């Protein structure tokens, strides 16, 4: 089972899934181990056992080369069945970039990804507005807070039909949107054509979160910022101090 209310920082356990082609697995692993006081271990995509974990990270990268469609093949990895069960039992699952794409393909989050509107890979620091600061992944941020986190993807152009969008809005599932310096959600601030500038969404229960930006890349000012720490701090706060 997932975290009990007795969880201490030192006993919170993260699993980072390694698919063939994952390449931000080590970055996520390092971010957890360096800045949360918790412990992360790698999970092989053929593993089927997630017992004892509190949070599963599906990291960025190019699982299966992102061939066919991003995440399309990885979602059939044996571990994904276990991840689905883990989420159903209330475990925390965060998909970053490719991990987000996998969660979409697996139907664990609503919507789908198109190629970026500019058709090019985009790697840069972007501004995000925290739309929902009540999730286990964003509670360390203030509602409406502007944060700077890099993106690095070719297919982050989020799409969902009107019905699905309305439903998501109704349930507060849009967690972060691309915005400008001033925190305004504008067309110019949209780096990839995403519908409604959507950068990250959660499921209805709020325990599965997917986002294109890479919080694990900005946990240390030496490498360009620390705005991403909030995501990991939120998770820890949720696990330790509970719901």
């Amino acid at each position, binding site marked *: 089972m997932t975290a009990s209310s007795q969880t201490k920082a030192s006993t919170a356990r993260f699993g980072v899934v390694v698919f063939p082609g994952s390449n931000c697995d080590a970055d996520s692993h390092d971010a957890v181990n360096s800045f949360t006081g918790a412990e992360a271990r790698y999970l092989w995509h053929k593993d089927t056992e997630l017992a004892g974990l509190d949070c599963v990270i599906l990291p960025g990268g190019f699982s299966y080369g992102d061939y*066919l469609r991003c995440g399309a093949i990885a979602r059939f990895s044996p571990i994904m069945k276990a991840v689905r069960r883990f989420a159903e039992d209330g475990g925390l699952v965060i998909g970053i970039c490719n991990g987000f794409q996998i969660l979409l393909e697996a139907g664990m989050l609503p919507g789908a990804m198109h190629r970026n509107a500019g058709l090019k890979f985009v790697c840069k620091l972007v501004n995000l507005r925290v739309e929902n600061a009540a999730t286990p992944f964003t509670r360390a941020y203030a509602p409406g807070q502007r944060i700077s986190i890099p993106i690095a993807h070719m297919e982050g152009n989020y799409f969902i*039909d009107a019905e699905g969008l309305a439903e998501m809005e109704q349930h507060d599932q849009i967690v972060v949107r691309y915005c400008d310096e001033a925190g305004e959600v504008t067309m110019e601030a949209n780096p990839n054509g995403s519908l409604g500038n959507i950068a990250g969404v959660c499921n209805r229960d709020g325990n599965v979160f997917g986002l294109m930006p890479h919080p694990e890349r900005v946990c240390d000012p030496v490498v360009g910022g620390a705005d991403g720490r909030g995501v990991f701090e939120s998770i820890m706060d949720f696990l330790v101090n509970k719901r």
Partner: protein
Amino acid sequence: MKAKVYITPKQGILDPQGVAIERSLPALGFEGVANVRVGKYIELELPAGDGAADEVDKMCHKLLANPIIEDFRFELETE
């Protein structure tokens, strides 16, 4: 036997690649081209048999196409 699978962006759904191609055509001297849609074309071989069509259909549903944004159709050919 051979299957030919055609995957196209769903009608009414944005197709960034199609849009980009359409925009770049005039500069290359191609006028009046419209409704460019970019999809996938997949060929594969599979054991012949009555169940083949079903198999390919399943493959498309499960893996080859994403029903949220894509339509598909396929043809089977026995050589």
